[in-house]
């Protein structure tokens, strides 16, 4: 599984998820914080679920608690895939 999960692919899925949470795509970047994007804890829980479904990466609450930016989330998923 690890060989097929690229950073670009994860970025695509994460951006699509963020958009579905109501975040503004114009503000998307790896450096954007979830706070800036108005992405809250329920959104992150849903993002974890999407990561699990798309990439088979089970993320627990404590994994997600430490991430602050979009890039953090992408790196975490890629590192676990």
């Amino acid at each position, binding site marked *: 599984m690890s060989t097929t999960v690229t950073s670009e692919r994860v970025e695509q899925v994460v951006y699509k998820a963020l958009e579905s949470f109501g975040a503004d795509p114009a503000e998307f970047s790896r450096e954007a914080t979830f706070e800036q994007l108005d992405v809250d804890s*329920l959104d992150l*829980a*849903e993002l974890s*679920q999407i990561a699990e479904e798309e990439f088979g990466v089970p993320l627990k609450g404590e994994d997600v608690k430490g991430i602050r930016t979009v890039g953090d989330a992408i790196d975490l998923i890629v590192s676990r895939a």
Partner: protein
Amino acid sequence: MRPDDAVILVTGGSRGIGAACARALADDGWAVALTYRTSPDGAAQTVRDIEASGGRATAIELDVTDAGGIAGAVEAAGTTLGGPVLGLVNNAGVRADDLAVSIDDDAWDVVLDTNLTGAFRLTRQALRGMVRARFGRVVNVASVVGPRANAGQANYAAAKSGLIGFTRTAATEVARRGVTINAVAPGFINTDMTAGILQNGAIDAIPARRAGEPEEVAACVRFLASDGAGYVTGTTLFVDGGLSA
């Protein structure tokens, strides 16, 4: 809006309040998966009743205290009935009555595990799909016992109070996704579970001067699970003939 193919899972649906809920929800257009633990015949009968009325239903064996069986039951409900599981009625419950001074650990654990922990695990599992779908209805069958004292049921009161607290907080977490979580709190209802306790003047304490029927609880559950109740969440609807008024 609830999709046409939405499935609702009703635990403990083989008899009593659960069976009445299953019938009422099917009547309201839900495809109903009802779970049973000890009464496959009752579950099969409820399914037949629903089908005879033109509804869709299936029965699934599930012990709600079996943590490993929860995900499979939710998945089976959706697969068997061919739709997303967007409704859940946590109705399965047990009693093991005694005075607090005499409740042993087993009697405490089985009541908490079934009435509270089982409901939590099922809700946690079902919420995943509901949050993604931006629609969901969870109704927890609590009890007037908990909000009100009832000597001899400290374990049951603790579980049902816990269920009401869980309902309130979980409801606030998912409200913005179109998912509602509410509770009903039945008083004395004529079921197998209350057989034998509706004596000794218990009826005299109820303002309505009668026990309730499972269908009267089911009507409230049906409402809370409906599209019309979309702005009702985190609340507990007492169905008790005025006992807690």
